[in-house]
C-alpha cells in the first residue's frame, strides 16, 4: 500500500491522460462572451459602487477643469476693463503734438525755457527706462536725452525700482498726488503709496531724477494742475489670466524707450508716439490657459502599471493690449513627445482611472506675433521662431473612456513645471512655470 515509487503503469496512465482534450462545445465561446460583456459576475454589487464613484470622479474632474479654463481664459476682458484714461484726454492722432493732447488736461503752458535742462548727466537715462504711467512717460518725453535705447533686460530690471507698475492684480496705481505744492517727497509718496509686492520702490532712484533735473518747480507745476483737476489721475490696472500672479520683472522684452523719439527739448512732434510707446511699455501679457491635445500610445506592464508616449500638440495664446492704442496677439504652436508612467487604480471595461507622471520635450513649430497699432492704424504680423527645446515635468490624474479594449478617449488635468527654454518670448510657461494644465486626447493601449 505504501508506495515510495509510483507504479509505472500509473505513470503511464498519467502521461496518457494529462493532455487529454475534447473539443469545446459549439457556442461555448458565445455563451461565455455574453456573460463577460457586462461587468464581471462575481463582484457585481461592488462594481456598481465603483462605477458610480468613477462617474462622480470624472464629472468632478471635468467640471473643475472647465472652471479653470473658463476663469483663466476670460481674464482678457477683466484686463481690458481696468484700463481707462481720463475723459479729457483725447485719443492722440497720428503726429498730433502731445501739447495739443495734454494741454487741455494741464491748462497752463510753460515756457520752453524751463524745459531746457541739463541732460548731461546720463545717470538719469536709467530713469527713462522703467517708467510706467503717463506721468513718468510725459516727464521722460520732456527730458529725454538722445541716449540710445536700452532694451537690455538687466538694466530694465534694475529700473523696476522706479516703476510704478502694479504687481498685484487688484491694486490700481494712483499716479497723481493730491497736494499741489508738490515736492520731491510728495511725489515719492504718491508713487510709492501703493507698494507693490516687489517693494523695490527706490526713492533713491527718484531722488536722482529730481536732483539731476533740478527744476522741480516745473515738474511740480506740470503735475500740479492735473492733480488738482484729477484727484484720481490715471489708473492703470494690470491683470493676467494666470493663477500665479504677475512677475513684473519679466517685462524686459516689452520695454521700449520713450527716449527713442525725441531729439530736442520742446519738440512735441513725436510725443504722441512716445506716449504710445510709453504706454506700450507697460503692457503686461495676458496669457490664456493652454490646452493640449495628444495621441498617446500606452504599453501595459504587469499589474496596474503602464508606460506611455505619443505626440502632443499645444497652443499657447497671449494677448497684450491697451484699448484704443495697441493690441498684441501672440500665438505659439508646440509639438511635443511625452514620456510617462501611469498607475491605473481603476481599470474596467468602459472606464479607466489613473494617475501618471513623467516629462515631455517640446519644440515650437510655429508662432506668430500680430501687433495692431490703433494710433497709426497699422497691423504687423511677424513670425516667432523659438529654437531651443522646451522641457517639462508633469503629473496628472486621468479619466479614460474605453471605446474598445485598446482604444480610448482621455481627459487629464494635471500640474506641470516648465524648465526655462532660454528664449526671450513671453509665454505663460515663462511667467508661471509651475501651472495647471489640461490634456485631452486619444489613446491606444496594448
Amino acid at each position, binding site marked *: 500500500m505504501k508506495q515510495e515509487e509510483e507504479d*509505472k503503469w500509473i505513470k503511464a496512465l498519467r502521461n496518457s491522460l494529462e493532455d487529454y482534450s475534447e473539443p469545446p462545445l459549439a457556442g461555448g465561446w458565445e455563451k461565455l462572451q455574453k456573460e463577460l460583456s457586462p461587468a464581471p459576475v462575481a463582484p457585481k454589487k461592488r462594481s456598481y459602487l465603483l462605477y458610480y464613484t468613477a462617474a462622480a470622479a470624472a464629472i468632478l474632474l471635468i467640471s473643475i477643469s472647465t472652471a479653470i479654463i473658463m476663469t483663466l481664459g476670460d481674464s482678457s476682458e477683466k484686463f481690458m476693463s481696468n484700463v481707462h484714461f481720463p475723459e479729457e484726454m483725447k485719443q492722440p492722432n497720428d503726429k498730433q503734438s502731445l501739447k495739443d493732447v495734454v494741454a487741455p488736461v494741464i491748462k497752463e503752458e510753460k515756457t520752453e525755457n524751463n524745459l531746457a535742462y541739463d541732460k548731461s548727466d546720463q545717470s538719469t537715462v536709467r530713469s527713462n527706462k522703467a517708467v510706467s504711467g503717463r506721468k513718468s512717460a510725459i516727464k521722460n518725453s520732456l527730458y529725454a536725452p538722445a541716449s540710445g535705447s536700452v532694451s537690455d533686460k538687466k538694466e530694465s530690471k534694475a529700473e523696476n525700482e522706479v516703476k510704478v507698475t502694479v504687481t498685484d492684480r487688484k491694486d490700481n496705481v494712483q499716479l497723481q498726488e493730491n497736494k499741489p505744492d508738490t515736492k520731491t517727497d510728495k511725489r515719492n509718496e504718491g508713487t510709492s503709496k501703493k507698494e507693490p509686492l516687489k517693494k523695490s520702490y527706490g526713492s533713491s532712484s527718484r531722488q536722482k531724477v529730481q536732483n539731476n533735473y533740478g527744476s522741480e518747480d516745473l515738474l511740480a507745476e506740470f503735475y500740479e494742475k492735473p492733480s488738482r483737476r484729477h484727484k484720481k489721475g490715471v489708473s492703470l490696472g494690470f491683470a493676467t489670466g494666470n493663477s500665479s500672479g504677475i512677475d513684473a520683472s519679466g517685462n524686459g522684452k516689452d520695454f521700449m524707450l520713450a527716449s527713442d523719439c525725441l531729439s530736442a527739448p520742446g519738440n512735441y512732434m513725436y510725443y504722441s508716439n512716445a506716449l504710445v510707446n510709453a504706454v506700450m511699455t507697460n503692457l503686461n501679457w495676458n496669457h490664456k490657459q493652454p490646452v493640449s491635445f495628444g495621441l498617446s500610445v500606452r504599453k501595459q506592464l504587469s499589474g496596474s502599471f503602464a508606460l506611455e508616449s505619443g505626440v502632443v500638440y499645444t497652443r499657447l495664446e497671449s494677448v497684450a493690449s491697451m484699448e484704443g492704442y495697441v493690441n498684441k496677439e501672440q500665438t505659439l504652436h508646440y509639438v511635443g513627445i511625452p514620456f510617462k508612467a501611469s498607475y491605473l487604480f481603476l481599470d474596467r471595461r468602459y472606464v479607466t482611472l489613473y494617475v501618471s507622471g513623467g516629462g515631455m520635450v517640446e519644440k515650437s513649430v510655429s508662432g506668430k506675433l500680430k501687433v495692431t497699432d490703433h494710433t497709426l492704424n497699422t497691423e504687423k504680423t511677424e513670425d516667432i521662431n523659438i529654437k531651443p527645446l522646451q522641457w517639462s515635468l508633469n503629473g496628472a490624474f486621468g479619466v479614460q473612456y474605453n471605446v474598445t479594449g485598446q482604444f480610448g478617449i482621455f481627459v487629464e488635468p494635471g500640474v506641470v513645471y516648465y524648465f526655462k527654454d532660454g528664449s526671450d518670448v513671453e509665454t505663460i510657461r515663462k511667467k508661471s512655470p509651475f501651472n495647471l494644465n489640461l490634456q485631452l486626447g486619444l489613446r491606444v493601449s*496594448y
Partner: protein
Amino acid sequence: MQYFVYLCIYKSIAVKLMSETELTERCLAEDNEARKEFYERYAGQMFGICFRYAGDRDTAQDLLHDGFIKAFSSFDKFTYRGEGSLRAWLSRLMVNISLDYIRKNEANRQMLTLEQIPDNMEEPQEEDISLIPHQLLMRFITELPVGYRTVFNMSVMEQLSHKEIAEQLGINERTSSSQLFRAKKLLAKKINDYLREHNL
C-alpha cells in the same frame, strides 16, 4: 478577393501565434480577441480536467464555463512565470472549481464507498497502457465512484500529496491513501479486463 482571403488566413495564423505573455497582457486588458483566443486554446484540455472530476459531460461543461469566467476576472492575480505557467495556472483554477463543486454537492460526499475491491492484485504493464485509447482510459476514470475518483485525480493527475488531499477534502490522510489504493485496484481491473477482451 484573393488578398482578402490571404488577409483572413494571415490574421487567423497571427492570432494563433499570440505568445503566452501577450495573451496574458491582453486578457488582463479585457481584450475580447485575446480572450477568445485564450478560450479556444485551452478549452479542450480544461474540459478534460473538469470531465475527470465531474464524471459526466454536462457537469463538466458547466464547470468549464464557470472556470473561464473566473479566470477572466482574476487575470490580475496571475503573474507570468515562463512557458507553461499560464496553462498551469488555468489548470489549477479548473481543479479548484471542480473540487468546489464536489465539496458542495452532497451526493458526492460518499468518500467511503462500499464498492467491492477486487482481490486481484495483478497490475497492468506499463507498455499495455499505450494500447488503450485515451478516451477509454478517461472513461474508466469517470466510471470510478466519486470518492475514489477525486482522490485518484488529485494524487495521480495533479500529483498532490495525501496530506494536501486530506486538507482539501476534509478527510484524513489514511482515508486518502486507502481511497487511492482502491481506485487503483478498480482501474487495474478495468484495464486488465479490457486487455483480455481484446486479446492484447
